[in-house]
């Protein structure tokens, strides 16, 4: 062991340093775990100058790298590590649900959402009584407005206006989860990536689940196509509601289209950064980040009569034509709700 090195002093000092750290493989893990006796001894105690001098003395005239490393560990590395560990441990581990939803993170943002709901968009919600006080329900809404402010307002409307103050779990477009920060943010806020498995799980936990079947086609449609509903995916919403035995509540959102009117989209640049499109609105690239602020349009959110697909069962899930028919009917219902509201509306900003 120590005797293999010619410069090692043949005294007690050598004994003291021979602490079982002789396995060369272990040097690989200098940062791994401190287990040897001397490290434990020095942990947390202040090494005095005399002790330091003694330690330096033990090093001898031609110390090897390993001896110096060990001295460093004895003097302070382990204490430094303890300090780092204390810092890293500070702050509580977050309380989340199994998806990663963090209520404490949402709470302050809900206040912001409420302000936007009450004072900025002056959202008027009707038919909230169609959303049950408990139990599973699938909200199906039209999607528009370049950025998903519409989702946030549906969440705020049910949270603050509904008698049961229920928490809505929105399903979010796939691409968000490819991007740094955005996916993490959505997960923490309680959103879940839109897929049948995730949605079914939410409904089985009796959550209010919000889905925008139009997806990117809806939120990213140009201003000239406003309030014309796009294709409702492949009928996933119907299949989901039938499988989960959940009622569907159709939701129409009016006002979001004009909050961020999309003039055109840049596709080629978007592909390079992993976004479905880069929006161009009257203010967006022009004013920089300020362009992300929506215009204070007057919003109407209508909750329609619940549609019951629970009786359909497995037969309809297998019957593709029937499924598509129901899907089209659902789309027509929401389109009708939008058209009615648009007829009533006199001005975009004043309602």
């Amino acid at each position, binding site marked *: 062991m120590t005797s293999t090195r010619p410069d090692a002093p043949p005294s007690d000092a050598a004994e003291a340093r021979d602490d079982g750290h002789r396995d060369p*493989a272990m040097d*690989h*893990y200098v940062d*791994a775990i401190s287990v040897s006796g001397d490290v434990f001894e020095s942990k947390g105690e202040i090494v005095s100058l005399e002790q330091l001098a003694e330690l330096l003395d033990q090093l001898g005239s031609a110390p090897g790298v390993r001896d110096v490393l060990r001295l460093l560990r004895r003097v302070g590395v382990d204490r430094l590590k303890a300090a*780092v560990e204390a810092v890293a441990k500070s702050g509580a581990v977050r309380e989340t649900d199994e*998806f990663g939803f963090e209520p404490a993170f949402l709470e302050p943002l809900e206040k912001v959402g409420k302000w936007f709901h009450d004072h900025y968009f002056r959202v008027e919600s009707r038919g909230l009584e169609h959303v049950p006080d408990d139990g599973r329900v699938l909200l199906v809404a039209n999607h528009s407005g370049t950025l998903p402010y519409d989702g946030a307002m549906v969440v705020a409307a049910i949270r603050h206006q509904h008698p049961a103050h229920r928490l809505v779990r929105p399903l979010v477009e*796939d691409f968000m989860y490819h991007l740094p920060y955005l996916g993490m943010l959505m997960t923490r806020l309680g959103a879940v990536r839109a897929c049948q498995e995730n949605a079914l799980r939410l409904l089985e936990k009796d959550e209010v689940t919000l889905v925008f079947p139009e997806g990117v086609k809806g939120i990213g449609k140009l201003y000239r196509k406003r309030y014309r509903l796009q294709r409702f995916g492949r009928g996933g919403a119907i299949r989901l509601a039938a499988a989960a035995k959940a009622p569907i509540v159709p939701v129409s959102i009016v006002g979001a289209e004009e909050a961020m009117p999309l003039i055109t989209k840049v596709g080629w640049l978007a592909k390079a950064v992993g976004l479905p499109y880069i929006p161009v609105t009257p203010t967006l690239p022009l004013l920089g980040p300020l362009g992300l602020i929506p215009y204070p349009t007057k919003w109407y959110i209508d909750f329609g009569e619940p549609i019951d697909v629970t009786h359909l069962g497995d037969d309809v899930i297998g019957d593709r034509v029937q499924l598509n028919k129901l899907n089209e009917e659902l789309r027509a219902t929401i389109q009708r709700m939008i058209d009615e509201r648009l007829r009533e509306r006199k001005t975009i900003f004043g309602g």
Partner: protein
Amino acid sequence: MAGAGFRVALTGARTFFGERLIAALEADPRCEHVVALDIRPPESGGLKTRFVRLDLTNPNADEQGARILRDEGVDTLCHLAFLAHPSHSSSWAHELEAIGTLYVMNAAAEARVRKVVLRSTTMVYGANPMNPAFLEEGARLRGEPRSRWVRDKVGAEMELQKLARDCPKIICTSLRFCITLGPTIRSWWTRVLSRQLVARLMGYDPMVQFLHEDDAVGALVKAVAEDHPGVYNIVGDGTLYFTDALKLGGRLPIAVPHLLGYPIGDALFNLQLADAPGTFLNFLRYSWVAEGARMRDVMGFTPRYSSRQALEAFYESLGYRGAPPPIAPPPPGL
């Protein structure tokens, strides 16, 4: 063969799972005989255990294996011979894991064993942004396309599925363990979590889940003692954010932008300074949490430790155990 107890053979007897399973079977009165197959004898063998040397990288390992299985009158074969660390000699690892499994399955078919149990991992699902929040057993095995180590594990699963198809009489069980932690197990995950500084990717924080090593062994014993054909995710209850998992142990996360992380990871691995190549950062980037409902409801197995308890037990034990052993055992003949 006359006894009522079961006669088990296990490959990879010298692996962590092998050693622990042998110890558990030695103590289990239902077990009559254990045949330990590996290139080195296991340390935990007792009176019931017989060691037979079998090198799965041998081209005739299937013939040899079949002979051993028949001679010893084995009814249950546990295939546990998998590396706990991504190996630098990837072609040797491929021979051992993917081709070795082919030989083991061939031997099982030839010797007409009653049951085959495969030790697999939930990493075979691959970390992908398109994964549902909870992966069920039927999900596609995307693996990790750029990692041969994970692809070999997927290859092993495929071999088991082939065996199940070709020999319907053989009960084929695959147990997919999530990150298994505990006082004694060593893998590249335990090494990563033993470090004071742990790399993570900027802007990504997936949910992770853990399993305690006792529960892993418990599930293996249950699969050996009872018949549970099919695939089961063996996972601890609950999930937690990766950064919170680090926080519980007082680990300092080093956030790396993902564009830099992959090349740096690859370079560090090639210099033998990192535990795994850059592509493994995907497991710290996207979700690959597996659903344990089938384990609880169909197999009737409930882990005693939750994800968080398993992790805490692991961190607690670190102070008492020595530094981890060197990276993958040196491949013979290299």
